[in-house]
Structure formats: C-alpha cells, structure tokens
C-alpha cells in the first residue's frame, strides 16, 4: 500500500442523509479523576458544531479520547446515512493546534504531507505524482504556493490550512479542529472559517471545532455546545448565546457581541442568497 487514497473516490458524498457521529454516555477518567462524564452528543453530517468552554473544561481531552489516545467509557459511534450501519471508529480528520517541532526544523510542507501519505521515506525525495497530489491537496485550501516552504516559516494561518489539507486526505467522516485560529490575524480567521464552511457543504462533513473566539464562531456555527466536564448548553448559536452558560463564563458583553454577529450575518446572507436553510441536514 503506497498511497492511502482509496477513500477519495467517494469524496463527493453529497447526499444529506441522516448520518451522524454519536457520543453516548461518553466519559474519560484520568488517574481516578473524572475529566469528562455523561456526554451525549450527536453531530450531524454537514453540521459545523463549535465547542466552547473555559480552560480546563476538557475540550482537548474529549478530542484525544475520540482519537483513541485516551481510554474512555461509553460509546463513540458513526452511523452512515444509507445503511444505518454502525461503525465504532469513524474516520477522523484531525487538525491539531500546533506541531511539536521547533521553528528551525528541516521539514517542508511537502515532507509533512508525504510523511502521512506515502511509504517511500521522505528523505529519498518525492515522486512527481506525489508532488502533483500534494499540490492539489494544498490548492483545495488555497495554499498551493506553500509546497516547498519550511513548516517553521509558515504563519499560523498557513500552517492551519496546511494541516486542514492533510486532514481532508482522505475525506474523513468527522473533522476535529482544535482551536484552529489561535494566533491567526482577522483576515486569516475569516478565510479559514469560510473555507471550513465550504468544505462542510462540499463533502457533507461533520465538524467539531474548539474555539475561544465567540463572535466569529457565532457567525459560522450551525450549533454551539458549551462544555465543562459535561455538556451544559447545547443548541443553535442564538439559543446558547442567550442562555446562561456563555453569560456566566465569558460575560454578558461577549455573548451580546456574538448575538449581534448572528443578526449581521443573517442580514448579509439574505441580501446575496436565498434564505433557505443552508445546511439542510437536520432531520
């Protein structure tokens, strides 16, 4: 197996069936302490769910457990639309917050991508076919110029888009984004969120995104989940921002800014497009 591309053939799974990722009574204990407990969450395909919560709420722990890095109790299921078949392990695309390398590390974007995709050792050079493949992956996230850049030279936004390109190859069932826009400039944040929204529609992806940026999250999220050891609030951005969770933790002002962002966004969408439900995936 030289390449791991077999899933890309059905990349365009555009139908909005009722596929979803489901956490049932999900919990994580570390050294006898419950970090997460009694989490019940359904993430539907084509839905961008923003995960909010104070520091230490267990957001990253949730991701690590879902990736299989930490033992968990309860169930993690992926349910396909057509077959109602249940899979214990969905194909998860993951975008970490950062890489564990220093700025001077001799790793190019090409090295990073082929390190994941091919078996031929990256230091023996890259085949032309693989370069073309990597270029295409980067083009999908508007980062085609970065192929020969060193990872350490990339801006936060460029690195995030590169990691996003990697997470989309092969197309996952569920995409986990861990604070993808921390350290990114406002224009970069917008670009990133627009891209993620687009990809969600194109591939009918379920996306779970951890963010601290409430105003931007409010504009793009289909759904907001407030987590602190367990799920305390869950609903549309409007519902969650109006509810007590955000107001108590992050303050009334921030919640109101978020709400006004939603109003602006709604007005803008209605000017340019029809006002029907964009995601269209909710059962």
């Amino acid at each position: 197996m030289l390449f791991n591309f077999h899933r890309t053939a059905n990349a365009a799974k555009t139908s909005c069936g009722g596929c979803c990722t489901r956490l049932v009574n999900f919990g994580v204990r570390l050294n006898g302490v419950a970090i997460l407990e009694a989490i019940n969450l359904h993430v539907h395909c084509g839905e961008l769910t923003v995960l909010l919560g104070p520091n230490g709420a267990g957001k990253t722990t949730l991701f690590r457990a879902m990736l299989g890095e930490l033992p968990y109790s309860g169930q993690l299921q992926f349910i396909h639309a057509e077959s109602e078949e249940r899979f214990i392990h969905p194909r998860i695309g993951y975008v970490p917050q950062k890489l564990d390398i220093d700025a001077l590390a001799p790793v190019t974007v090409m090295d990073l991508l082929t390190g994941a995709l091919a078996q031929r050792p990256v230091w023996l050079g890259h085949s032309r076919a693989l370069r073309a493949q990597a270029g295409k992956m980067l083009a999908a996230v508007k980062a085609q110029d970065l192929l020969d850049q060193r990872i350490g030279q990339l801006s936060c936004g460029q690195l995030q888009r590169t990691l996003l390109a990697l997470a989309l190859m092969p197309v996952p069932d569920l995409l986990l984004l861990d604070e993808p826009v921390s350290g990114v400039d406002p224009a970069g944040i917008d670009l990133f969120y627009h891209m993620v929204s687009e990809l969600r529609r194109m591939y009918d992806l379920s996306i779970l995104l951890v963010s601290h940026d409430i105003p931007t999250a409010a504009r793009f999220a289909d759904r907001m989940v407030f987590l602190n050891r367990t799920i305390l609030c869950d609903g549309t951005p409007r519902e969650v921002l109006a509810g007590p969770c955000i107001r108590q933790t992050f303050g009334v002002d921030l919640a109101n800014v978020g709400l006004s962002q939603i109003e602006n966004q709604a007005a803008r969408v209605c000017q340019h497009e029809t006002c029907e439900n964009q995601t269209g995936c909710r059962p």
Partner: protein
Amino acid sequence: MTFWHHIAGHLPFEWAQFVFMQNALLAILLIAPLFALIGCLVISNQMTFFSDAIGHAALTGIAIGVLAGLADPLWAMLGFAAVLAVLVSVLRRYSSASTDTIIGLIMALAVALGVVLLSRGGGFARYSSYLIGDLLTIRPFEILRLVLLLALVAGVWLVFFNQLFFTGLNRSLARARGFPVWRLETFFAVLVAMVVTITIPWVGLLVINALLIVPAAAARNLARSMSAYVLLAIIISALSGILGLISSFYWSTATGATIVLWAIGFFILSLVFRQR
C-alpha cells in the same frame, strides 16, 4: 575482507598500511551512516536523553553478562537494553510523571547497579574499555555484524521512516491517521537500544550518544528539507569518523572521543552557516 584490505592497502597514506586501521576505516564507513540515520530521527522525535540513558544502561547489561559467566556480554547487554527500552515506553504511556524524570530515574538505577555489580571486589578497571571503547581492535566478524545491523536499519527505515517521522511531528495527528503510535515508538526505542549497545565496545559508552546526536544536530542547522537533513547528517558523520580515526592514530588518542570532537567542530561550523 581481503578485497577491502587490497583496496585500503593501496591508499597513499602511512596509516592505511596497517590492517587494524583498514578494519577500523571500514567499520567507521558502516557506523557513520548507521548513526546518522538513527540520529536524525532521535533528534526530531526528541529522544536524545533516552538514547543517552540506553548507552549508560549498558553498564548493568555488562554486569549481568559477567555474573552469568558469558564470555561476551553482548547478548546480556542487548537483552537488558531491549527490556529497558520497552520499560521506558510503558512507563511513558501509563505514568503521569514527565518522560525526562522517568528516563533520568531509570538511567540512575542502571548506572548505579552496573557500577555496584562490576566494582565488587575492586575489579572495575577491567571494564573501563567499555567506557572509552576501542575501534582499533575491531575484528572482521564484528564488522560483518555491523554490515547486518546497517542492512537491518536501512530496511526498517524504508518501511517505517515516514511513520516514525510523522509521529515525531504530532502524536495525536499520527494517531488520527491510524499509525500505531505506541508500537512505533517502542519499536524505535528498541532499535536505538540495539544499535547503541552493539556499537558500545568500539565507540565507548561515554561518548556514544554524542556520535549519534552531533552530526544530525549539525545537519539540522544547515538543512531546509528532510532529504537534505538526512544526507548532510550522513556526510558529516562520515567525515568526522574518517578525520577522527586518522587523527586518533597520529595523536594516540581514543578514537570514539576524537571523532566526537571533530563532529563538534562541524557543529560549530554549521552554526556559522546556519539557515535562517
């Protein structure tokens, strides 16, 4: 071997006329790429302290071999190093103490236990050759051992290099891509342990980690991509090896440590020409 001696004997240098130097040169030309290949991943996966600890732990391995009455303690050293490598991996997985602390503790235990066992009755001086190593005493069948080891590492690298490299970039990301992170890391740790242990008698456990790390660290300063990184590490490792061997011949110094000094020289040079 006779073929090699024939070639090396025709080198127009005084030192190249001695059979032990010809053997040592061949050994260096095998050890250099071996160490460079391993060293590159040891550095990028942040395992420099681990490989250092494995080198020191060989003391206990030697002691076990001696107590068991083995003529050549190599197998005891290999077994002990492999067990230790797995132990560190397991502790790293299941303990909440930091990796550095775990490795530090295990290294302290292995060194102290080795010294205590070997110094019983005041006979430690007999084993000091393991501390410094002696490349000039290498024999043809031991060179064959190095050939096999290099072939093994090269084979493993062809299959697993990318996964090991990717695991070093971000473990969660590697896991998300379905790489068996823990098994990979344990496998790599055992491989490093084997390579370090097998080469200790010729390089010496005091400087073996430097030989592993320094050429790769110098290459890291100069390289901008993975291919440049690995190739430069091999070149720097081979150059320091050859220069170190020749100068140790003329200065009558320990070969391993002399090679390390050359490697450090290259590292300082690499700082000057560092890519920004």
